[in-house]
């Protein structure tokens, strides 16, 4: 499934200092955020996985937006992704 993934708020530093990724994620039919996270960790992340994930979710303090909307509106980990969706991860865990 084709997706646009973006990392911000300093999270891009874990992902080779690259903010935007256009990716093709293997999926049989449906794909949820729960499945996307480990894929991103294993395929895109380059440094310190513990700063990206905790358990099967993102580390608390990382915001997730799907097509510009808070993932809490669409079921967080169970949110189903569609081809072409834009998924943004923003860390809030930095100084202000």
């Amino acid at each position: 499934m084709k997706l646009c993934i973006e990392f911000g708020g300093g999270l891009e530093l874990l992902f080779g200092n690259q903010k935007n990724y256009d990716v093709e994620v293997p999926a049989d039919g449906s794909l949820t955020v729960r499945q996307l996270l480990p894929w991103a960790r294993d395929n895109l992340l380059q440094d310190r996985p513990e700063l990206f994930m905790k358990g099967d979710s993102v580390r608390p303090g990382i915001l997730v937006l799907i097509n510009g909307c808070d993932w809490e509106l669409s079921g967080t980990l169970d949110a189903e992704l569609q081809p072409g969706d834009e998924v943004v991860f923003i860390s809030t865990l930095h100084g202000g």
Partner: protein
Amino acid sequence: MVALCSTCNKERAALKRPKTLEQLCRPCFFRALEDEVHATITSCRLFRAGERVAVAASGGKDSTVLAHMLTLLNARHGYGLDLLLLSIDEGIAGYRDDSLATVKRNEETYGIPLTVLSYRDLYGWSMDEIVREIGTRNNCTFCGVFRRQALDRGASLVGADKIATGHNADDVAETVLLNILRGDAPRLARCASAFTGAGGPLPRVKPFKWTYEKEIVLYAHFKRLDYFSTECVYAPYAARGFARDLIKDLEASAARPSAIMDLIHSAESWTVCLGDGGGDGGGGGGSDAAASDGAAAAAAGGNGSAAAAGGGGGGARRPRSCTRCGYLTSQPVCKACLLLEGLNSGLPRLGIGKVKGGRGSAAAAAGGGRGRGAERAAAGCGAQGCGGGGCGEVGAAAAAAGAAAAAEAGGRAGRPPRRAAVIEFESEGATR
């Protein structure tokens, strides 16, 4: 799939608010957040018309959103404030030099004049130089103490009446937790207040006291505000990080976003009795008064404001001028001067930990007039054996090591060992 905004019922909702669980679209969210900050500003009487307000600007998300929102609210509600940006350059390569570029862009975007002061200008040391002396364990103590003073000094320099900081609800909740862990009663009494230092020359206000970090970040993201987001390179070593993780865990993993508000509310509800204080401490810092609004904080009298202005360790004392720099302090010598003395005398851990009484004497006795480049081994607690322990927290073993090092130093200088200095040093006052 995504619901409609619960306020306007027209636009697609863009977020779920952690505080109210409302689902709002972007425009309704912007307005709701701005109205809440305006409510904090008015109900806590943070500003008065005509005041010159220095916005502490780091280039990060909180201060960027604060500069944006104060500019906007000042115009919308006619506060009549004269706003300006104030930045402190700690001298951290790869961090502040980049974020200052962001602040400079903010200066242009909002049309607010910017002043930048560096640690090197103010103290003769950059943070990078301090870390080379002390390592990455207690360095945030230096940074925090120096920054607090630097902001005050900078604010006086630009003729400001008040300093506005971008501390958000998550920050305040973190601070509440940290002050509990440290047993710092005077700070506990005032740390949740949106208005501190009411009786001092430069009060501080936190317009984002009730604003969640998540919403500040989303506000900045949705509005495409230009902010800088690299973690301070030294921050992973700071104790604050643990408190922050705990709070984020409570918020997210425990699915209880109200944990942040609950912590702030509870801190406001405590009455902290400050028994110490040599006669002026009776009555204690009624945290209700200190917490809620400016008038109340001012009315709470010398005690609360003394503590806020002074920033001393144990027990609120009357504020006085530091005998070295003249800055307001609750001790004869202010914390920054004490830390500086440690750095300049080759005893960089001097100001970290607890001191009971006679800071000056401890500093003088321990320092012994060594130059900045003095060998660390010659300086009691700067010794290698002490390095990992964080001398502020050491027990008998490290005290003995310190005594031994002091003895060695004393021996070299042809003097008896200064044991008293080591003991006083060991029991030194709380850090920020």
